[in-house]
């Protein structure tokens, strides 16, 4: 099965139409889609997991880290001042805010030093593994939550897919996120994340069109409309808040 899924993932990445059609028509389309999504998400997070565990197991010098953040802030303000003078109160307030966090950091440091029934490194490994295994669930939640709205619009646009076909097919969108494996690489990781997102959206549209047996244009409409509706609602909410605040201010 894993070999078959690997093949499916590769074909999905290359937008091979036949592979999408075969996958959408498969009796276990949802199971296959979900397994692929979970595997890709886990594989994409392996390097981050190792980096995080190693980072957390290494003894940290809090003072050095605070100093590093302060130096970073100073460099940031210097860069900002290249574009214009910053009000001194702004800088002062920023530093004061940062220093106000110090007692909190100290509490965190002391709590981290407290003993636990099992040795500390086991706790570090388990908590990182817990976060690692939570990743597929958080991806599933976002994907299913958004797909519910896409499914509704696809149906209204004449889509013919069953719920399993629609979800199983669109689960392929996760395949490019295998690039997340390079996420910890500075700069490159972020850029590849953006590439994976755009690539994933394109796969989502293609899969939606194939599963529903309608045009790519309709698939784009079904994919984009929920986001547009959310955006309009959010803007309306903000405008409402603004009007409310202005009315209160006026009163």
């Amino acid at each position, binding site marked *: 099965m894993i070999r078959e899924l690997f093949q499916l993932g590769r074909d999905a990445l290359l937008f091979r139409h036949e592979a999408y059609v075969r996958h959408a028509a498969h009796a276990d389309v949802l199971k296959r889609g979900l397994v692929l999504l979970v595997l890709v998400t886990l594989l994409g997070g392996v390097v981050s997991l190792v980096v995080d565990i190693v980072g957390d197991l290494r003894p940290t010098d809090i003072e050095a880290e605070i100093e590093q953040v302060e130096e970073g802030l100073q460099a940031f303000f210097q860069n900002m001042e290249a574009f214009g003078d910053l009000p001194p109160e702004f800088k002062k307030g920023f530093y004061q805010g940062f220093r106000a966090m110090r007692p909190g950091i100290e509490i965190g440091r002391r*709590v981290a030093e407290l003993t636990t029934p099992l040795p500390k490194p086991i706790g570090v490994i388990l908590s990182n593994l817990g976060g690692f295994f939570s990743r597929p669930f958080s991806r599933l*939640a976002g994907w299913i939550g958004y797909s519910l709205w896409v499914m509704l619009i696809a149906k209204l646009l004449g889509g013919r897919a069953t719920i399993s076909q629609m979800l199983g097919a669109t689960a392929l969108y996760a395949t490019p996120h295998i690039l997340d494996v390079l996420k910890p690489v500075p700069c490159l990781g972020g850029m590849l994340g953006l590439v994976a997102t755009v690539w994933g959206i394109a796969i989502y549209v293609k899969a939606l069109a194939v599963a529903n047996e309608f045009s790519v244009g309709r698939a784009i409409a079904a994919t984009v409309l929920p986001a547009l509706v959310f955006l309009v609602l959010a803007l309306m909410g903000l405008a409402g808040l603004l009007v409310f605040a202005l009315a209160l201010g006026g009163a």
Partner: protein
Amino acid sequence: MKTLIRLAWEALFLKEESYAEMRDSPNAVLRGLALVALIAVAVALVGLVGTTLEWATTPDMRDVQKVVLEGIQQMDWYKELESNPEFREQVQRQFEIGWRIFPQVFGAPSFASAGLRIILLPLHLVLTWFLYGVVAHLFARMLGGQGNLGQTLGSTALAAAPQLLNLATFFPYLVVGGVAGTWMLLCRYVALKTCHRFRWGRALAATLLPYALLAMVVASFACLGGVVGALIFGGGTPQ
């Protein structure tokens, strides 16, 4: 038991055949009840394992409480006001009240809550299954559905299958989040569509109307609570 587990596994992947098999079962309600209770008990027991591992890798909460209080007492604002005994007493009191709530809210492992879940989760799942099933059945019949109440309850019991995702919480610090709830909604849609032989539009309406009704009931109670609160605390008198 084996059949129930197979049905739940297939229902999780939204296989209409499993919902149809449950609908056509002669004792759908009893099987449904057994399935929901079984899933709930299994999830709660497995959660206890996860909680135990989290407890074993977390410092004693009494030590954490001590460190946090000492940390607060070292803060500038506290030092400025600590000469006032009333202030010291009030901070201590508020801190102790807060400490009863916040660690639980932020996920501190608690054996008491995990143990209580073995009783409360089956009760909660069975009750929500039954209430949802009855209300959804009423709406489904209004929309021209063909299934009877026993068939609706049997089919919608399979919609508890996504709770199986929570079995993953045997692993400490793992968060399943809202995915099980959303997935349950999908399963309920397939259950009602299959049980009442609906087309997608009516199935969707029958699935969502109980949620809409619940939202209306909650909003009505909130409004009523607000009015009663205003009358009691605002000093007003009913006309």
